[in-house]
Structures are given as structure tokens and as C-alpha cells.
């Protein structure tokens, strides 16, 4: 893509999210969301093949519907309460509409259906932007409208974790696996958002490097299915050894950093006296863990056969920059000992 176009699109993407972050007026927040949606559309369809176009269309329709509902809800709220400020509590009726709209925007169950198909149609870089950056803006809005309709939030959270678990079990395409992983993680974040927004932010902050690392690893190996990933031992042996750490961190296994948000969330839920919800969420994390483990098994714990020529790529130096991946992999695997510092930083 033309570098000027690319920079305009990326900068608009950044603008949109930052606008939503900075706004205290609902209309401005909505505008930020729309800008980021519009900015990412050309990025999604840059390759012009039908699958990408299909993904772009689905994304656009879904996000437009959600944004329209956000506009409607905030207008209704302005009608009822007479003010547009985000900081004031919402009336319950637009609150539930707004929650559903934001759920659709982020890809929470039971309105998650668009996410796997859209992610599958994109290339890995755009998918990365969709999975990480695009979650920030709706997430912040969600944080700011709390507390609202506790049972709805819990329902969204628990369903998301379960759907993320069960859905991912039947997949061999890596992008769909990551889509379900995103659904599950967002479910965890939503669960705790009604009690402690800092912990939800922690979950997001930890989730982003982990997903970034996974997407980068897949991009380095240029693999989009589990079978292709199995050949990575010959291309990037060091990365093949590190990937299970990242994947298991996504699964929330101690002593990796992914354990930190899950631990804190379970603790918070227990303190709020809903141990049953906490148990269900924890058990559904087992389902997700299984498919992460399956991917790492196929990649690292087995050496898949290949012809002689394919066993040589690791000897050649790569031109791609490995620094971002190195940083994010380190964060996503080794941050657990810094848990107290991280939590302290987030309570600002």
C-alpha cells in the first residue's frame, strides 16, 4: 500500500481511539469509534481478494450497527437525564442498550459471531490490529459506564468465557483460535469490570502483549493453520521453544504472566461473594487451556516430518525486526514476579 495512505490510515486509527479515550461527551466518544472503524476498513480490504472483502463487509455492518445503537442509546440518555456527560450515571434503559452495543463492538458472547469470520479473512497484521487496538476504545467506554445491570454483565462474561472455550476446541485455523481466545479473555475482563475496573484494565494490559506475541510468532512463521505451524521447528527453532510459554500464558498458567489477571479476578470475584461464577470461569479457562496446549504440542513437542530442503531455513538470517516480538514475549512470559508493581501502577 502507498506509504502515505498507510500512514493516514494508521494515524486515523490512533486518532479515533485516542479521541474516545479523551472524551467526556457521548457524541465525541461515538465519533472516535466511527473514525477508528472507518480507518481500519481500507486496511482490512487492502489485499482485495474476496475473502478479505467479505470480512471487511461483515466487520463494517456489525460495527455500524453497534455504533448506531450507541448513538441511539446516548441520545435517549440525553433525552431522559438531560445531559451528555459520560461521567454521570446512565439511566437504566439506555444503559442496557449501550452495554449490548459495546458488547457487539468488542465481540462478547452471545453476539460474538462476527469475530471468528472477520478475523479469519484478514492477514495477520490487520488481525493483530483488530484484536488489540480495536478493543481499547469500547473497553474504556465499558469501564466508564459501570456499574450497570449486574446480572447482564455477569451473563455476558460467563457466556463469553464458555463460548471462547468451547468454540476454540474445534478449530485448526490459528486466526479463529485467536478469535475465540479474544472472546474468552474479554469475558474475563467483563466479569470483573463491574467490581474493580483496575483489574479489568490489568487483564487487558496483559492480554495485549500476549496476543501481540502470538500474532507476531505466526507472522514470522507465516503460518495460519496448526499444521503449517508444525513446520516451524526448521524455520525458527528458538521461537518454537518460546511459543509454548506465550500460549500457556494465554491459557493463564502460573508462573507465567497470564496467570496474574486470572488470579486477581478470581480473588476479586470471591471477595464479592460469587464463588460459583468464579468456579465456572475458572473451569472454562481449562477448555481454553486445552486448545492452547494442543497448538504448542503440535508446534514444539513434536518434530513433524518434512523434506530435506525444508529443514534448512533456520540457517538463514531474517530481515524482519525481532525486537518488538522479543519485548512482548518477555512481558507476556515473565511479568508475574512484578505483579505488585503492576497492580500499583494501575491504581492511578
Amino acid at each position, binding site marked *: 500500500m502507498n506509504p502515505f495512505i498507510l500512514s493516514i490510515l494508521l494515524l486515523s486509527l490512533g486518532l479515533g481511539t485516542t479521541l474516545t479515550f479523551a472524551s467526556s461527551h457521548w457524541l465525541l466518544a461515538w465519533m472516535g469509534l466511527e473514525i477508528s472503524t472507518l480507518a481500519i476498513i481500507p486496511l482490512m480490504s487492502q489485499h482485495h481478494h474476496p475473502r478479505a472483502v467479505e470480512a471487511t463487509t461483515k466487520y463494517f455492518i456489525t460495527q455500524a450497527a453497534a455504533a448506531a445503537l450507541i448513538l441511539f442509546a446516548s441520545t435517549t440518555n440525553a433525552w431522559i437525564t438531560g445531559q451528555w456527560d459520560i461521567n454521570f450515571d446512565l439511566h*437504566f*434503559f439506555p444503559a442496557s*442498550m449501550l452495554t449490548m452495543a459495546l458488547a457487539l463492538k468488542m465481540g462478547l458472547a452471545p453476539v460474538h459471531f462476527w469475530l471468528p*469470520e472477520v478475523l479469519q479473512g484478514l492477514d495477520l497484521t490487520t488481525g493483530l490490529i483488530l484484536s488489540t487496538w480495536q478493543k481499547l476504545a469500547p473497553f474504556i467506554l465499558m469501564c466508564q459506564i459501570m456499574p450497570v*445491570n449486574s446480572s447482564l454483565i455477569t451473563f455476558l462474561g460467563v457466556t463469553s468465557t464458555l463460548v471462547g472455550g468451547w468454540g476454540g*476446541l474445534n478449530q485448526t485455523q490459528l486466526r479463529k483460535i485467536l478469535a475465540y481466545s479474544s472472546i474468552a479473555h474479554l469475558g474475563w475482563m467483563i466479569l470483573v469490570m463491574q467490581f474493580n475496573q483496575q483489574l479489568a484494565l490489568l487483564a487487558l494490559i496483559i492480554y495485549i502483549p500476549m496476543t501481540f506475541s502470538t500474532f507476531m510468532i505466526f507472522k514470522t512463521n507465516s503460518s495460519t493453520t496448526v499444521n503449517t505451524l508444525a513446520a516451524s521447528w526448521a524455520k525458527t527453532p528458538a521461537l518454537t521453544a518460546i511459543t509454548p510459554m506465550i500460549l500457556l500464558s494465554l491459557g493463564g498458567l502460573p508462573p507465567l504472566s497470564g496467570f496474574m489477571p486470572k488470579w486477581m479476578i478470581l480473588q476479586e470475584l470471591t471477595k464479592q461473594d460469587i464463588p460459583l461464577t468464579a468456579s465456572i470461569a475458572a473451569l472454562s479457562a481449562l477448555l481454553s487451556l486445552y486448545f492452547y496446549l494442543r497448538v504448542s504440542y503440535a508446534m514444539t513437542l513434536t518434530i513433524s516430518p518434512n523434506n530435506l530442503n525444508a529443514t534448512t531455513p533456520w540457517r538463514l538470517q531474517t530481515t524482519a525486526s525481532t525486537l518488538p516480538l522479543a519485548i512482548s514475549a518477555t512481558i507476556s512470559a515473565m511479568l508475574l514476579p512484578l505483579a505488585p508493581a503492576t497492580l500499583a501502577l494501575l491504581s492511578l
Partner: protein
Amino acid sequence: MHPTTLMYTSSLLLMFAVLLYPLLVTFTSLPLNNDWASSHAKTAVKSAFLISLAPLSLFLSTGMEAVTSSWTWMVTTTLDITLSFKFDHYSIIFIPIALYVTWSILEFATWYMHSDPLMNRFFKYLLTFLVAMLILVSANNLFQLFIGWEGVGIMSFLLIGWWHGRADANTAALQAVLYNRVGDIGLILGMAWLATNVNSWDIQQMFILSKDLDMTLPLLGLILAATGKSAQFGLHPWLPAAMEGPTPVSALLHSSTMVVAGIFLLIRMSPLMENNQTALTLCLCLGALTTMFTATCALTQNDIKKIVAFSTSSQLGLMMVTIGLNQPQLAFLHICTHAFFKAMLFLCSGSVIHSLNDEQDIRKMGGLHHLAPFTSSCLTVGSLALTGTPFLAGFFSKDAIIEALNTSHVNAWALTLTLIATSFTAIYSLRVIFFVTMGTPRFLPLSPINENNPAVINPLKRLAWGSIFGGLLVMLNINLFKTPVLTMPAELKLAALAVSVLGLLTALELATLTSKQFKVTPLRTPHHFSTSLGFVPAIIHRQIPQLSLLLGQKIASQMVDQTWLEKTGPKAIANATTPLASATSNMQQGLIKTYLTLFLMTLVLVTLISAT
């Protein structure tokens, strides 16, 4: 220390040293000289016997008993265990007798096991057994007794399974261990009860402190221990099976010393039992049943060693009956006299077996009276002593027991069974003599019949002296603790003798039937009962393992594999999750209209619910 006590303790110490020295020599890696068994082991036992005569003579002259407590082994807040030895009437008389018998057996074994390449190990085992037995007999506390108890049990296992290449020998050894173990449960139960209630394992302390307690439970435990060790009915099958071991083993362990350990325990603990009617009645009835049952089984056996084994079992039942009559000293006397003639019977059978080239079936013997006169004479003497022929060794103890039984006010049924068993004793003893020594030979012509070896003759001679004069000697030199009833009707007095003679005559009559056909269709049921040993081994040895194996199979395959792992555990989770996973991913049909409709429906639902 009083000089008598000093003499007792130092003789015991010297005895242990003399007996342990040959064992310790074998732990160095020097090769043993050819006649180590004869020069070291047998000589050690002979010297130990001579040493043990010193405390015996001192006891006979002064009548002084002693208890020595030496080193304190364990000190806990509630229980102290010291090394303590009891030199009382029972141990001082039993130790010389045991050593005398063991000396003879070891000398015999130098001939019997001559061709065995591991003969030295055999003697080592026998010596270890002897040391354990002496520990058991001289123990003053239950802990030390238990050490000896377990020691004799283990050595019994090793010695029964001496020819371990033979599957039957291994099975027999295992049987011995398992049945003894069941008895050990009783002993440990008794020990635990005593430790927790009376707070001591010392014999003297236990007797004093349990005066007012209800001792039924520990006594039942001790009786169970005696049932296991002394092969009473219920735990008896191991004793005939133990005949798989070499004849010296049968002679030493399973006739004179080890099997009497259970009875000895009860004798030691008799002051605890004398006021407990339940325990006494139990002993009486159990002993009567044992003696009758095993005598019945002995009537139709064809293996000479098995007949003697059942005879041992029957005599053990008699000893148990005596304890049930509250006459522990008479039981002890019977132990002492029984050791002589039973060991001699076993040695005679060993001599016969080796002479006939390892033939043990009495139907294939005969006419040995002319061919091995000394052995058959000893066999006859031993059998006569066993049946209680007046003024031989067995008479003094056996007749005293039967008299005590007749003049007591206990269970008439036990009395009847014992008398019938006494007559059976005569019957099977005559059967042995008839088949082995009388008549014409039924064995192969080239049998290596040889009893000219002094290693055979001397032990038999010594034990024959013991079988003839042993009872008289013991009776002359002791004082009976309980005054026996000396006046009774003539029929009661002569009852034992009468039933034995009756049995003898019946047996003689039956013996002459071997060459005639008395009945065309004989009555086979009693014969089957006797030959199949009352069907007890067939039932117990099959039924219990079958139940255990079935239970094991149920647990392993049905409970663990099918239920826990498949239906409720991992496989159930897998079977439940798979449809859910497929459903979740199959819901993605790719139609955006469906997704948006679902969104609309959810929105409406949520709004409606939140509005209410």
C-alpha cells in the same frame, strides 16, 4: 546379685554366646571347613545343653526362681521396655529339654542332609531358630517374647521352603507364614490392649495390675495367637503342609519346639486366665475339637510324615484342653515329654525315608523290623510313649491330663472327644507300626537300608532314653502347683488306658483286614472326610482367594476403569464437551443477517428484562 541369680543369668548368657558363635563365624568370608556343621553347630548345641544343666540342677536343689532385668531398651512416658529374662520353673526345665532334643536332631541332620550342597546354611538356619526359641521361652516381657515369636515364624518359613525348587514346598511355607500371621494379629491385639490398659508388658506387672480388670479381650487375642502358632482347629492346615520341609526341620520345629510356642504363651499367661471362664471354656472346646479332628484325619493318611504331623496336632489339642482345665503345669509337662517321643518318631521316619530312597508312602514300606531293627524298635518305643503306655514318658503327662479331665466339672462333650481322640492315637500309631515294620517288604529290592551310622544311632538312642525315662525324671523332681485329685472311681482312673487298649485291639483287627475283603461295597464317606482333611484346606484355600480376586477384579475393572475413568471421570467430560464444542463452532454459519437478528433479539430481551 544373689549367687543363684548370678548363676542363672550367666549360664543363659553363656548359652547364647555359645549358640551365636557359630553363626557369627559364618559372617566372615572365610570358607567353612567340611565338617563345620558337625564340629561347630552340633558341638555348640551340645555344650549349650551341658551348660543349661547347671541352672537346672540348681533349680532342682533350691527351687529358686529369678527374674533378671538388664538393659533398658526404650523409655517412653507410659511404657518402658527392658531386656528381662525369667528363670522360672517353666523356662529352666524347658531349655535343657529343648537343647537335648535339638542336639540329637542336629546330629541326625549331619547324616540326613549330608548330600545337600547347602548343608551349612541349613544348620545356620536351625541355630538361628534355636536362638529365637530360647529368646521366646526366657522372655519376661511380651516385647521380647514377640521378638522370639516372630523369629521362629520366619525361620519356620525359611526351613519349610528349604527345597524351594518344589512348588509344593513354597506353598507350604507361605501357608505357614499366613496362618501364623493371623495368629499374630491376636498376639498384637493382646499386647496393645495390655499396653493401653495395664500400661506394662512385664509379666509380673501385668499379673498384679490386671486383678480387677475384665481380661476377656486380650485373652481372646492370646488364644488366637496360640491357635495360629500351635495349629489349633481353624488355623491348622499349615502343620501337615509343613512336612514339605526336611525331616530335621519337622522334628525340631513342628513337633517339639515351635508349635508349642503358642501353648507356652498360654501357660505363661495362665494367671490371667484362671478366673476368666470364657477363655477357659474356649480353650477347652477348641482343644477338644482340634484333637478329635486331627486324629480323625491321621487315620487315613498314607504319608508317614503326615501321620506324625497330625499326631503332633492332636497332642497340641490335648495341651490346649489341659489349659482349658486350668492346669497349665500339666500342659507344660506334656510339652516336655512330647518333645522326646515326637522328635524320635520324626527321626525314625527320617531314617526310614532315607533308607528306602526317599520313599514316604507307608503302603510301600514293610518288614523293616528285620531290616532296620534299631529304627523300628525306636519307632515302637516312641509310639508306645505317645499312646500313654504306663510308665513310659508320655504316660505321666497324658494320664495326669486325662485324670484331671475326668475328675473336673467341665464340659462332658470335650471329655468325650478327648477320650475318642486318645483311642484314635492308638489306632494310627498301630497303623504306622503295622505298615512300616511288620509284614513283608513292599519296596524295591535295591533299597539302601543302612542304619549303621553313629550319626543316626546315637540321636535315636538318646531320644529313646528320653522317651522312656523322661516323664519319670521330670515327675520325680518337680512339685505340682495344683494338688491333683487322687481318688476317683476305678473306671475313671483306667479310662485312658482302656480306650487306648480298645483302640489298639480295633486297629489290630482292622490291620488284619488288609488282606481280606470285608465288605463288597465299603462305606466311603467317612474315609473321604478323613482323607480330604475334613475338606477344610479345599474350602479355605480356594474360597477366600476367589473372593479376594473377584473383589479385586470388580474394583480394578468395574469401579476404577469403567465407572471412575469412563462414566464419571475423564471420558465423561470428553463425551460431554465434544457436542458442546461442535455446537458452538457449528453455529457460525456465515450469515450476517442471522447474527444481527440474534443481536436484535438479545437487545430486546435485555431491554425488556431490565425494564421490569
